[in-house]
């Protein structure tokens, strides 16, 4: 009896281990296939001119230099607006707002996370683009920031909640006021996690196209001001991908490869800057 039972148990364990391994393989495999395919399709059109030049008419080559600069600027604007706001909301939810109001804020933040990004684009179009009568990098950055805030807020909240309560008590017992406990002990202890949340948000918005169509619009030139339409990799990829020209299709693949490398690069830099020191 017992031996039979043990055999069943081992078989069950083996089956479950295999199942989870297969699922992991499936998920990671799909990702690797996508990455490999993009690299395969994109590498051909990649060269120095492509990375530095601005778009040219079909047959004249041209590149995505302006879109790279534009995307980086849009990410910068949205990070400057979205990250501090999101982190502050997260700190509020985790450390201060524990009553009914905090619960309401949390519910609203969760709802915001689920809003389709195109709605955010239309919203910014209505409140910024229409009154100012022109598309602009600032409007695009704002739209992306609005998408970032709830993501950053919730991940920050979760990361701060993981900081042991005993650390807060230890600092309070030394006569630290609450704001110093939060700034000096809790946030540094959660910094790697908060940075990961920020990274997820940046990675998420760097792939957004829809909200930019209504706000940053796109441009065939290098940006000269934040108050004018600006090119971005995603919009450029979209425009090239729906065009009928093979040359532009190839350029769309290459631009996708560049975008992915960009996100990976930012990820590595942020991870390096916020690596665990203690």
């Amino acid at each position, binding site marked *: 009896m017992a031996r039979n039972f043990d055999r069943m148990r081992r078989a069950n364990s083996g089956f479950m281990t295999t199942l989870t391994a297969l699922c992991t393989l499936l998920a990671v495999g799909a990702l690797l296939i996508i990455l490999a395919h993009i690299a395969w399709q994109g590498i051909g059109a990649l060269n120095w001119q492509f990375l530095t030049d601005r778009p040219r008419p079909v047959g004249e080559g041209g590149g995505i230099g302006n879109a790279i600069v534009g995307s980086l600027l849009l990410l910068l604007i949205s990070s400057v607006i979205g990250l501090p706001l999101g982190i502050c909301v997260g700190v509020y939810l985790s450390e201060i707002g*524990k009553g009914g109001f905090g619960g309401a804020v949390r519910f609203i933040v969760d709802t915001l996370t689920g809003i389709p990004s195109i709605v955010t684009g239309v919203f910014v179009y209505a409140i910024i683009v229409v009154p100012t009568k022109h598309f602009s990098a600032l409007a695009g950055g704002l739209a992306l920031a609005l998408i970032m805030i709830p993501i950053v807020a919730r991940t920050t909240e979760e990361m701060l909640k993981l900081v*042991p309560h*005993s*650390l*807060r*008590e*230890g*600092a*309070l*017992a*030394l*006569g*630290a*006021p609450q704001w*110093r406990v939060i700034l*000096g*002990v809790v946030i*540094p*202890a959660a910094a790697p996690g908060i940075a990961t949340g920020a990274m997820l948000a940046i990675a998420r918005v760097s792939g957004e196209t829809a909200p930019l169509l209504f706000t940053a619009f796109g441009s065939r030139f290098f940006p000269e001001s934040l108050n004018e339409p600006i090119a971005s990799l995603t919009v450029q990829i979209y425009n090239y991908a729906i065009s009928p020209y093979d040359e532009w299709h190839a350029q769309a693949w290459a631009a996708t490869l560049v975008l992915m490398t960009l996100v990976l690069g930012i990820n590595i830099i942020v991870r390096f800057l916020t690596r665990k*020191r*203690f």
Partner: protein
Amino acid sequence: MPVQTVAPRIEVRASAPVQTSSKAKVAVRNLDFFYGRVQALHGISLDIPERIVMAFIGPSGCGKSTFLRTLNRMNDVIPATRVGGEVLIDDHDIYAPGTDVVELRRRVGMVFQKSNPFPKSIFDNVAYGLKINRVTSSGSELEGRVEQALKDAALWNEVKDRLKTSALSLSGGQQQRLCIARALAIRPEVLLMDEPASALDPIATSKIEELIFDLKKQYTIVIVTHNMQQAARVSDRTAFFLLGKLIEVNATEKMFTAPNEKLTEDYITGRFG
């Protein structure tokens, strides 16, 4: 017949101060404490004289830790708690409206059951309290205070060559002594210790106990302990708690040899708890 001195039946340790002449550093009057609707402490009244070690003993859940945490208002951070009665430190009620809790906690330091060093360097851990309280702006004085605190906590020799390394690289016993050094650095008047040695091995425990014995020259120390031998070893006075009530408070020698209360005797002889 000439008058003969009669040898006392119980030998009182020479270092134990005479209780009656000591001024009460902490005086608790009729303290009630509630977690929501549950009453955790019932009408506690207790004096803690200056520069002695007072031990709180009692079974788990008897309220001794809760009581300790009322002395620096650490329970304030737990939601839905309520306090009744008075806690006088130097004759000032710390629960009176307008009390500066931050200032109170500078005067009443605390060491927790589980060591909780900050994820910073050893030096920064000890310097933290000094920095936030703006004790000094001079770097050399800061270093001096950190060194002194680490020496007071009997940790200096083990860490003096690696002050810039992470506090989390220390062993459990060293981490706890670091937390004691951190609390001592701001020179509190009262030091609360919530089972400071319960997670440590016997060697680390004896180091902490020696430390407590040295520290009472300068500080008033209140220690919660599960371990009755420890209470007997380190304390001058002992208070016994049961089910949120203070059953007996007495000189430690008396408590462990001839307690006044039957319940105390039952507990220390291991009949329950």
